């Protein structure tokens, strides 16, 4: 019975409503996104606007520092010096993604929610450029203010 309640609580948390992120849409800010400096790489972080797990959020860490938040229907980007990248999200467990970033390169990191014991997990994964670019359309920008 107790296990059933735990699973039920998890399901309620995962299916519970969570508001989509607020902010200007990609199409409204795309022209304001600065070109990438030749000495740096760019990482876009995004989370599709899906109801499943909408209430589950997490800070996103890049190489140990918080760069943004995984929220339903949002995206932002970070420019970094080339090198090794470790992305981490944390809810009931920490999930990591490791990849390399070269100068002039742009990579796309998708975060999504999966079942966990209580609150679900936020999983970061790399997607290719075609998928990443297409996914940004319609998402809300939650990064630092653009000029």
């Amino acid at each position, binding site marked *: 019975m107790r296990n059933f309640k735990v699973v039920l609580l998890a399901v309620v948390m995962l299916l519970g409503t969570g508001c989509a992120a607020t902010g200007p849409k990609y199409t409204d800010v795309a022209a304001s996104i600065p070109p990438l400096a030749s000495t740096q790489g760019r990482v876009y972080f995004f989370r599709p606007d899906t109801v499943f797990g909408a209430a589950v959020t997490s800070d996103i860490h890049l190489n140990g520092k918080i760069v943004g938040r995984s929220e339903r229907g949002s995206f932002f980007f970070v420019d970094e010096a080339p090198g090794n990248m470790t992305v981490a999200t944390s809810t009931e467990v920490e999930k990591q993604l490791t*990849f390399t970033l070269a100068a002039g390169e742009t990579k796309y990191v998708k975060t999504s929610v999966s*079942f966990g014991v209580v609150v679900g997990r936020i999983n970061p994964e790399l997607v290719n450029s075609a998928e990443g670019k297409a996914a940004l359309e319609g998402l809300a920008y939650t990064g630092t203010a653009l000029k």
Partner: protein
Amino acid sequence: MVFFLGLLGCAAEILRSATEFTPAPPGTSHVILLAEDTDVTPSSGYSRTLKTGSRWKLIGQTPQGAVYEVQDDVFMLEGKHMHQAHLVVTAGNRLVGFFLPVERAFVALSPAQSLKLAK
């Protein structure tokens, strides 16, 4: 059972060993093209499919074999965490494992598998 193991977070770290990586000389442009889908399962972690038509560029060498990076796509291994990964291939187009560039580590594929390449 699998469902509950998943809930409990029982995915294991990918078994790997440190290795040496020597980058290919500048100008190296050798690319292989896969002729068919190839399902691979590392000694730990989840299975992956190497896609038909995917292009892999030679980027260096490890003691275990030549290292090829996918082009215009991403390839990752997944265990407890996700890792960008490259193929490690020996003579005869034998896929013997994977190279994790961030961890600078080799992940064995046992048994090794033959890759069918397009001409």
